[in-house]
Each structure stands twice: as C-alpha cells, then as structure tokens.
C-alpha cells in the first residue's frame, strides 16, 4: 500500500473500499473459492494473478453478485453486500467487466453503451458520460451505429469497458481485459485503464494472466492458486519475486531446480 496517496490522510479515509473476508463459493458440490480474503483501497489498482482454473473469474462473479457466496463477507464501503443481487450491486457503483467480451451482439454499439447506464436515471449526466466514454474510445464513436457482434475482438473489449463505465463505477472489476489481444492493443487498453484510474478516479480490481502488464499498472497484487490466495504484496515487489518471475513472467531459473521447486511450494501455501 506504499503507493496509495491516501496514506497521508486520516485513518478513516484509509479504510478499504472493498474488503473480502474468508469468502467461499461453490459450483454445485465443487468448491471453487476456498476462503479468500483481500482488501482494495480507494484509488488503487489491485491485480489478481493466477493460472487457468485458479478461481479468479469465480471470485469476481461472487463479488459482483452474479454468484452467491456460501460463506464469508464482502464489504463495499463498510456495508456487507454478500447477499445482494447483481443489479443492486451495480447501483452501488461497483461494476464487473466480464471475461471474453460479453457484449450484446445484435444491438448497435451505441445501444450497448447506453444500456450500460441501465441502473441510472440522471439523463443529463448520462449524456455527458457518453461523451466522456467516447473520448477514451474514439473508435467506438466511429462505429456507433454498427452491430456490436461485428466489431473486432479488441473493439469488443473496449466496448465492454465502455459499457461498464456508463454505470458510473467507483470500482471496476476487470476480468482479463488482455485476453486474446495483440501486444500493441494490450498496451493501448492498459494505458486507457491507467488514465481512467487517475482521471476518473476509478478504483480497479484487475484479474490477469498477463502478469507483466498487470503488475506494471497495479499498486498491489494477489496471487491465486486452487481457490486460495497464496501470495500478496506490493506490485513492484511481486514483480521482483522469484516465484512470480518463474511462474508468470517466464524468467528461467536453471540452477538447483529440485530444491527451488520445493522452496517455492513452501512459500506458496
């Protein structure tokens, strides 16, 4: 939390905007989230890393109310929201931008965007926010009348983020925004995310497989494995950590392989 500018503020302001404690989620009998606790402070970008199947998407779905947790606390600004429905949570200005560009394929780009403001009633401001969103994603303005399903993958990802912004989020939960995009486009999207974080004061929880880009923009990071948090630290420290380098950043460690593996195991649990 070194990078958090709020550190200087009185203690009250430093309370986490999102606090999760001992969360458990199931798919039928399968336990996918096994007691996760984490904290996100105002203005932060917090990344959650982890291999395929670690439970990152499930965690976000549980936070945003699409899934109901079996156990645990989800606190948004001090209020327990773990039993609320998804639409209720969007109204509290926490928005989930899902994995794999879940857009409305047969609606036009502009209708996809305007439907992002579904829970809002302040018409004037919605209009202004539309302009704001288009200023971050000018390509979407060019394609406003086009059917969203005919956009390219990168444009669809931008559309999903733009649609999320229309709910006027204070917190955005982003699930693998880099999925399937070219390095150049990943760069572009992450630059925009960082700008939104600074300029629009959107706190972000960023789930990623692409540890390098995620840790570059993030303040703090968690590593998930098999439904648990196995590591948590400042983003720059994680970036320099041997485990992360070996598993996510592709840095080779040739010496003393067997022993290293064992050590890694130990630090991870």
């Amino acid at each position, binding site marked *: 939390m070194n990078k958090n500018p709020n550190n200087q503020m009185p203690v009250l302001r430093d309370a986490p905007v999102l606090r999760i404690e001992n969360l458990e989620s199931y798919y039928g009998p399968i336990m996918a989230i096994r007691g996760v606790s984490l904290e996100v402070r105002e203005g932060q970008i917090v990344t959650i890393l982890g291999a395929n199947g670690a439970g990152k998407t499930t965690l976000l779905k549980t936070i945003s109310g699409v899934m109901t947790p079996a156990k645990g606390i989800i606190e948004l600004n001090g209020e327990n929201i773990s039993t609320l429905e998804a639409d209720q949570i969007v109204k509290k200005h926490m928005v989930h931008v899902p994995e794999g560009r*879940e857009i*409305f*394929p*047969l*609606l036009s780009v502009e209708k996809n965007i305007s*439907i992002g403001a*579904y829970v809002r009633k302040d018409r004037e401001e919605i209009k202004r926010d539309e302009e704001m969103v288009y200023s971050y994603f000018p390509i979407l303005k060019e394609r406003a009348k086009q059917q969203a399903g005919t956009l390219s993958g990168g444009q669809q990802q931008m559309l999903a983020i733009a649609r999320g912004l229309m*709910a006027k989020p204070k917190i955005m939960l982003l699930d693998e925004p880099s999925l399937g995009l070219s390095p150049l486009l990943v760069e572009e999207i992450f630059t925009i995310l960082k700008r939104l974080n600074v300029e629009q004061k959107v706190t972000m929880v960023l789930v990623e497989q692409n540890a390098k880009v995620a840790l570059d923009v993030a303040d703090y990071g968690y590593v998930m494995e098999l439904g648990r948090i196995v590591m948590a630290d400042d983003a720059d420290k994680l970036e320099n950590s041997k485990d992360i380098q070996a598993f996510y950043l592709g840095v080779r460690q040739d010496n003393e392989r067997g022993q290293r593996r064992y050590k890694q195991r130990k630090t991870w649990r």
Partner: protein
Amino acid sequence: MDMMQLLISGLANGCVYGLIALGFVLIYKATEAVNFAQGDFMMLGAFITIWLTNTEYLGLNFYLAVPIAILIMGVLGYLLDILVIRRMFGQPQIAVVILTIALGFIIRFVVGAIWGHDPHLLETPFAGKELKIGALVLGYEEIAVIIVTLLLTFMLFTFFRKAKLGQAMQAASQNQLAAYYVGIPVKKIQSLVWALAGIVAAVAGALFASKGAIDPSTGLLGIKAFAAAVIGGFGSLPGALIGGLIIGVVEPFAAYYLPAGYSQVAPYAIMLLVLIFRPAGLFAQMQNKKV
C-alpha cells in the same frame, strides 16, 4: 372477387396465428424454451373476455372488458413465471417445454370445467356488420382483427426499439450473463416477458372469438402457430407475424382449390419445405439485424 374474399378472411385468420406465433417467439427469446401452451393462453384469454363481456355472464361494456381481460392475462403470465417457471431455473430447457405441454392440458381442463365445452362467440359491438366495396363484402370483425394486429405489432416493435424496458428485454435475450453485469434485473425482466406473452395471447383470443366460435380445444391450433413461428425463423417478431399470415392465407386457398383434407396439412407442409430449403426460417437475416 372470390379470390379477394378468400384472401381477406385468410389474412384475418393469419393475424391470430401470427399473434400466437409472436407469443412463442417472445418466450423463446427470453427463456430459450418453447411455450407449447401459447395456443391455450390464447383460448384462455378468449374465454376470460367472453366471461366479462357476454350477456349470459358478466355483461360488461366491451371496451371495458377487453382491457380487463388483457390485464388479467398479463398478471397470470407474470404469476406463472414467478410461481412455476422460475423454480425450474437451472433445469434443462426440455423440462420447461414439458411443463408447458402439461400446462396446456390443465388450461383446457379448467376452462372446460368452468365454461363448458360448447362453442362460445364473443359479443362485440361490430358483430354482423359488413362493409361492401363493390362485390367485395368484408365483415367488420375481419377488418378489426387486421387493424388491431397491425397496431399491436407496431407497438411491440416500437417498444423493443425505443423503450428502456424493451431494450433490457432484448439485451437479456441476447446475452443473459452480460445483462446481469450491467445491472438489468434479469429475473424480473423474464417475468415481464411472460406477462407480455399473456397480454398478446389475450388480444389474440379476443380477436379470434370475435370472428368465430371458440371452445376449450381451440387452443390446439397453437401447433399451427408454432409452424408459423418456425416459418418466420423462430426469433424474429416480424417473421412470426408474416409466418402466421402465410399460413392463414394458404389454408383457405388450399381448402378451395385442393381436394378435401389437404388444407389441414398445408401449414405443416409449408413448414417442412421451409425447414428443408431454408433451415433458419424465411427471416433469418432479419433475425440477425433486428428485434
């Protein structure tokens, strides 16, 4: 002028098929299940209207009775979703389909028990009146059916295009998960779609019963409307209506020009032809672009 006469009465029948087909499509888009009771909804809507209007029952003013019947059917559709359909959430779609088939039996039984199995005709202010244009004689009922159907279709079309609720229904039908993510109350929307299916069924029922007698088994013509929906592409609202009109028009012509019995088969023969030559329905393209 025989041709013209056949055409008009075919169109009027087709409107009713089209409205039932519309109900099929609405539910299919919202729940991905086929509501095989849609024809029986129509029949129930008709009997409720008859019960409110006809002098042997409550004898209310026609123009008061119809909106009440529409309201009742809307509420019934809504309750059906909340009390029954929603509880099937997570079950395979086939379970919902079987449930609607059973529901059809129940509606036919209940209506028969309450109002009997004799044919009933709705008493309308325009019953028996005719419009003569040259040699062409048009019943007011037929004209009313066509006008009301066009109006209702236009209203639905505008609703899905412009209204926030209509957009939310469309969004939820295109991507249910994404609808959750933007804060659309998907379950509530689904209940409202069932309400809308009830409303459309009530209108179809009132129209049907105003131009011909109806009895509890009439609901079975829902199968013909199902063929209409398939012809239209099972996903397109205008397609459903046009599918209904095609079947409505073909029937009387087949009855007139072909040996007896063929007209019964005509709708299904057309459906088979469409399935063979255009498996996605006549209006598949439209489905990709519009409502």
